[in-house]
């Protein structure tokens, strides 16, 4: 594979701490909280309080296209309640609370041994049934993404954000499953080529995957080393690096015949097919100076973050910020009483020293460093200037919509301007404007339709009415009669109010 490059980006790894590699298993917590969140529509609980559930059992079914929610441990449904969650889609959600019985009984699906000879539909159904979702961070239902065949399938193992090392750990420990999963996804998508992309600093993972690929070769498989340069792991950047092509704005990779899946998703897909396991856990990188024993942990979905931190040795005295995700794009959480879900690739506890800006914010000096590092090829400083002035047409002309909020501009800014915050605000503002415009258009349309309907009814009535046989003669009044009537009126008013002379129009003042 010829390696192209994407514009901008930053070399971040090496300057910031990486997570030690081996994966430890996080102990089963006494209670697990499984949020019923769908990307579209709702998820209805299939269980009620007091029910016994087994690991892997489906406990929530989506109304729309999403994947189901599966119990991540065996036990009893203690309650179904609304709780805070660390999801980009909702701050609070209905959660099924499972009291674990500690025995971890499983309800596996039947294995599909000869998957090469099974239809796509069966395999997609299995992925849906096992609740397989993207483990790269977006947690998009995998069977939906796999629905259309593509030319090139990319298995993304190029994680590059400081603080995240779960994919690397997974590839080292489960290389065989990663490769077999890649083959499975390639089979489902009929991909001509499957590129497994790894960062060039992951020698250990490279060796493991290379060995696994030698043992389990499949047609069209290629290994590619990509520069470790944030945001290389971003889908759009990775596609540009590997193929030199750009995904159209507002479009999907599918439109240029490509599909990108996280390596963790490939492993999950493989396990759901070959072992009949539902997706109930993931590897989470626990990291930062604020946690005593950083590392990669295999964590059941629904495990409270507080429990996970406790398993990782607890907080140190310098803990100052709790982040779900990487240091560049992660979400700062208000508290740790939230469950880990499929999108949670890292939990970081950062210390004061690491997050404080060195100096107070100053005005933009247009140094252009943000332009140099922007992977979306925007002009961040111009965007910022227009956002401050709320010059929305110019903001749109400068393509705010293409911003991926990677944060490269913000950490390059010598004036310490929180640029990403501005862009988020701008996008929100533009969305609201579009919505109100849409509402205005909709109500205008409604009015027009109603108006047309009323006119039509009027016309129909007029058409139905029997033609009038005798035309009523228009009353004819001569000018003299009118003048006489006016004069009579004036005289009457004068009699009523003698002190006030009428003005020239005959009105009493």
């Amino acid at each position: 594979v010829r390696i192209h490059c994407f514009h901008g980006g930053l070399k971040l790894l090496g300057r910031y701490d990486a997570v030690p590699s081996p994966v430890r298993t996080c102990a089963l917590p006494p209670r697990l909280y499984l949020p019923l969140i769908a990307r579209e529509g709702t998820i209805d609980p299939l269980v009620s309080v007091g029910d016994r559930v087994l690991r892997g059992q489906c406990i929530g079914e989506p109304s729309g296209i999403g994947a189901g929610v599966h119990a991540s441990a065996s036990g009893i449904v203690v309650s179904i309640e609304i709780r805070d969650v660390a999801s980009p889609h909702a701050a609070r959600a209905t959660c099924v609370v499972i009291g674990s019985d500690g025995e971890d009984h499983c309800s596996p699906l039947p294995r599909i041994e000869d998957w090469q000879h099974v239809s796509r539909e069966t395999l997609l159904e299995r992925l849906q049934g096992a609740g397989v979702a993207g483990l790269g961070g977006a947690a998009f239902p995998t069977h939906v993404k796999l629905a259309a065949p593509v030319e090139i399938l990319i298995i993304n193992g190029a994680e590059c954000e400081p603080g995240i090392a779960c994919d690397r750990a997974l590839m080292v420990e489960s290389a065989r499953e990663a490769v077999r999963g890649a083959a499975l996804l390639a089979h489902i998508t009929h991909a001509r080529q499957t590129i497994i992309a790894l960062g060039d600093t992951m020698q250990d993972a490279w060796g493991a995957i290379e060995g696994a690929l030698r043992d389990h070769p499949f047609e069209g498989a290629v290994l590619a080393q990509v520069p470790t340069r944030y945001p290389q792991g971003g889908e759009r950047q990775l596609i540009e690096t590997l193929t030199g092509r750009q995904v159209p704005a507002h479009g999907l990779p599918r439109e240029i015949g490509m599909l990108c899946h996280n390596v963790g998703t490939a492993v999950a897909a493989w396990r759901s097919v070959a072992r009949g396991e539902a997706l109930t856990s993931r590897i989470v990188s626990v990291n930062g100076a604020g946690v005593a024993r950083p590392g990669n942990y295999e964590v059941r979905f629904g495990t409270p973050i507080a429990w996970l931190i406790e398993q990782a040795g607890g907080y140190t005295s310098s803990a100052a910020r709790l982040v779900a995700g990487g240091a560049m794009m992660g979400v700062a959480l208000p508290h740790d009483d939230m469950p880990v879900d499929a999108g949670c690739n890292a939990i970081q506890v950062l210390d004061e020293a690491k997050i404080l800006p060195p100096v107070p914010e100053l005005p933009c000096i247009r140094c252009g460093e943000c332009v140099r590092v922007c992977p979306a090829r925007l002009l961040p400083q111009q965007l910022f200037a227009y956002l401050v002035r709320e010059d929305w047409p110019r903001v749109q002309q400068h393509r705010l919509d293409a911003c991926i909020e990677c944060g490269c501009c913000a950490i390059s800014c010598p004036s310490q301007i929180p640029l990403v915050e501005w862009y988020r605000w701008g996008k929100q503002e533009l969305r609201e404007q579009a919505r109100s415009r849409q509402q205005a258009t909709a109500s205008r349309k409604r009015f027009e339709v109603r108006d047309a309907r009323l006119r039509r009814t009027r016309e129909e009535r007029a058409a139905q009415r029997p033609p009038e046989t005798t035309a009523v003669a228009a009353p004819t009044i001569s000018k003299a009669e009118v003048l006489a009537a006016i004069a009579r009126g004036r005289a009457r008013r004068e009699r009523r109010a003698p002190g006030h002379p009428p003005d020239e129009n005959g009105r009493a003042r």
Partner: protein
Amino acid sequence: MSSFAPASAPHLPARSTVRRVMGDVLIALVPGVIAQVWYFGVGVLVQITLAILFGLVFESIMLRLRGQDQMPWISDLSAPVTGALFALCIPAWSPWWIACVAMFAAIVFAKHLYGGLGRNIFNPAMVGYVVVLIAFPLALARWPAPQPLAAHAPGLGDLLQMIFSGHLPAPHRFDTLSQATPLDTVKIEAARGYTLAEIRSNPVFGSLGGKGWEWIANWYALGGFYLLWRRVIHWQVPVALLGTTILLTSPAWIADPDINPLPLQHLFSGGLMLAAFFIATDPVTGAATPRGRLVFGAGVAALTLAIRRWGAYPDGVAFAVLLMNACVPLLDRITIPRAYGHGRTRDE
């Protein structure tokens, strides 16, 4: 349950500060300044000190008048950069009020009345320089002869007396100490009908530009490379500026080397090298887009050459920079790069 303060991504502090950027510019000036001191005496340092002091005083006054804090702003080093760049453009023995007037124009008018740091449209150092150039043409035309040519340089005491009283002490006379700059010489002698070969036989000329001047230019270029390496400036402006100078002057020189100077003579004369790396690269007043910067640099070069050739001033870099500053909003608007996913797939 542990609670934490809300925050927004990214969760890493910025890697650079305004002070670091400005400090790098000052560091990068060091070799050029040393060279200039070598050829034109310690007066250069006195001028730099004066300009920086006046700059800081006016900055502080304006911050107070505008009701802003002194500390984060005055320590951003932007006023010292303006002062130093201005001081390098004037003769080393200029009287003190030259720096005072220029810094008043630069900091009060060009900078703070436009909204302060980052909001000025025109390069403050060049505004200051142009104001004194127009107001006091005689004082700014009296360049001392560079070191190897100077008959006897005035001592430090005489120099300070000159700078602070405005009069040259008794035994010295401007006629013997000062000398027409190489660009002046070319302009005057060419007007009198001499060929360039004849003009260049004048001892003020070195191998490329003026004697002394060419070496100072070299050291500024070295500082410029430091700034490129530190990613403080972008390559587009110096490359476009120097490239355009060579491109525009080469045909003329090839056609008639008797009338038209060698392209390299243009590069190594006057303030072109300083402008290419330190003045036209000012981020605030320069173009924001990569293509815009190319046009900006080319424009500065073209205007400088036009002023050198046809204008009333021997060097036109300052005017060229200010004229191009005025074009920046337009340049920024017509050179917006194509964002990811918009338009062609490969970017050529």
